């Protein structure tokens, strides 16, 4: 009798679980379904199957689903990979900006997640609210970051410009390179830099395997610095981030990190 009731419950629970619009509810519903199924197996005198279903189907599967979808309280960072600032090394992420962002996330009680994407997608994702912060060698030149907002900057740098057509330096500024940093690196190695890039900033070039020819390029006037991109609607986030970086500067910790990662 109990067996029949349990059996009849199975389709009902399955339908309810799979019609949920929230993923978490659906996952928990299917976890419940698995437990019911384990009970059915027990009633059907299959104890081994019941144990396996309960441990794998109900517990392990639900656990990995929940780990996979957990999104609450996280800081999403999208970045182009730039060695020294934010890059993968073996299976870890290292760099100055990573240290800053991790410290910021911990101070705010958030999980930090970093995705590496090409530069133009960094801008797009931050502008469309798909990510909280853009990072990885962002230099906010006037007009270059238009729909977005940027922090004042945490590492000073110089910006060089050159014209692709005749290879001669020019003070005119063209849009930044918008592919992957790694492609840039391989182009520099093959001497194809000037044919594909019209303006570059210093540290990007410096971190390009050291051999890239830079003679004869013009350094742009004015002070430039690496900064983080945030959406214009996220004034609170920007305020908190700026405050955190300022506190790092005051305590001298930022200089220590810069010394460790960049110089």
């Amino acid at each position, binding site marked *: 009798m109990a067996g029949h009731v349990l059996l009849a419950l199975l389709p009902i629970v399955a339908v309810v679980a799979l019609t949920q619009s929230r993923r978490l509810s659906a996952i928990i519903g299917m976890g419940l379904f698995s437990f019911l199924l384990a009970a059915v197996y027990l009633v059907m005198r*299959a104890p081994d199957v019941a144990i396996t279903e309960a441990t794998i189907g109900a517990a392990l599967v639900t656990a990995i689903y929940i780990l*996979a979808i957990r999104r609450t309280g996280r800081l999403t960072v999208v970045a182009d990979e730039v060695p020294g600032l934010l890059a993968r090394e073996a299976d870890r992420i290292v760099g100055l900006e990573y240290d800053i962002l991790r410290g910021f996330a911990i101070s705010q009680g958030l999980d930090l997640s970093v995705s590496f994407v090409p530069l133009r997608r960094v801008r797009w994702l931050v502008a469309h609210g798909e990510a909280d912060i853009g990072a990885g060698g962002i230099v906010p030149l006037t007009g270059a970051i238009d729909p977005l907002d940027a922090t004042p900057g945490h590492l000073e740098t110089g910006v060089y410009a050159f014209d692709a057509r005749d290879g001669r330096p020019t003070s005119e500024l063209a849009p930044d390179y918008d592919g992957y940093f790694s492609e840039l690196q391989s182009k520099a190695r093959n001497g194809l830099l000037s044919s594909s890039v019209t303006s570059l900033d210093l540290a990007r070039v410096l971190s390009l395997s050291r051999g890239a020819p830079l003679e004869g390029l013009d350094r742009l006037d004015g002070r430039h610095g690496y900064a983080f991109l945030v959406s214009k609607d996220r004034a609170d986030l920007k305020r908190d981030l700026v405050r955190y970086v300022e506190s790092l500067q005051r305590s001298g910790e930022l200089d220590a990190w810069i010394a460790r990662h960049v110089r």
Partner: protein
Amino acid sequence: MATIVSFVLLGIGILALVLRRDLVIKLLALGLINASSILFLVSIGNRPGGRAPIQFPGETAVLVDPLPQALVLSAIVVNFAILALALVFVMILVERYHTTDAQRIEQEMSRETDEEETPCL
């Protein structure tokens, strides 16, 4: 009874797989489809009045058929393996497209056709 329920569960699973657009829910539906086949196999071995297939020397009670149960143990593990890997692949897709909607992913992909695809070898 259990057999029919397993068929119904299979149907529910297929419907959810076809009609729900969220990839995570699709994977849950796939889990249901797999579970339905396991319920079916267990129900085959079941027989009225049979006891769980644990027998000590000298006992002669009627037992349920142990073979489907042994088969099912392997099937459960295989299904788990498939699910874990599928979930990882969904996570990779989401990293790129920032959505779990299967149709939106397919649209984005056809929009990107002009983008260069470097062969791996």
